[in-house]
């Protein structure tokens, strides 16, 4: 086994951006890395037992839209009420069809592989999040806690 360490900071709480931290963490763990993810700000959404992640086309010109909406109605098309739910549903269906794991599935694999998960205490308090709503095995800490692990990490990623 590699004996290497990977530290990740997960800051985003959307369906699309939930993937990089969990994919990289689970894969690194499979390769023998010791892995820790520090969840802060919107990244805390990824720790909720009941995941309700959405993907937004708003302000995201890189996102392919149905019927060329992004070409015909740039910006406005992405801001139509309900568009976020539609795009979230479409993205989930597409992922399922292409054999991409769900976020919950990847998170479970991370837990099985003993990926350390730290919730940023300051942002938990800031957003009045209920720690009971988080998955089991989460630790709570601050910046110093992150550096304790990251200071020895071979790779550190900010996502």
């Amino acid at each position, binding site marked *: 086994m590699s004996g290497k360490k990977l530290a990740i900071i997960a800051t985003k709480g959307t369906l699309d951006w939930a993937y990089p931290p969990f994919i990289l963490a*689970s894969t690194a763990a499979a390769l023998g890395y010791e892995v820790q993810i520090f969840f802060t700000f919107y990244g805390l959404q990824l720790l909720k037992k009941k995941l309700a992640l959405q993907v937004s086309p708003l302000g995201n010109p890189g996102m392919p839209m149905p019927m060329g909406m992004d070409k015909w109605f740039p910006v406005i098309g992405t801001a139509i009420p309900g568009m976020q739910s539609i795009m979230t549903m479409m993205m989930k269906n597409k992922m399922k069809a292409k054999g991409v794991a769900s976020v919950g599935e990847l998170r479970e694999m991370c837990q099985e592989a003993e990926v350390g998960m730290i919730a940023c205490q300051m942002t938990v308090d800031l957003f009045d999040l209920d720690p009971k709503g988080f998955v089991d095995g989460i630790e709570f800490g601050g910046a110093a806690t992150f550096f304790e692990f990251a200071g020895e990490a071979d790779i550190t990623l900010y996502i």
Partner: protein
Amino acid sequence: MADFDQELDATGLNCPLPILRAKKALGGMTAGQVLHIIATDPGSVKDFEAFAKQTGNELMESKEEGGKFLFLIKKS
């Protein structure tokens, strides 16, 4: 195709699932045993090479057959 001890059907699965499932399967095997993996993700070709290199498990064979990617990995 050489003999193998266990088979993993990873068809239809996309990155990183074939690797994660393979890792799990190898975890339940003993050293020297061989895992046969069937995948359809074209990315798995490079990924299993990288997986073997980094974990020390030997990639004995990697080939494409009828749109499927077949691998033999010997547990170290």
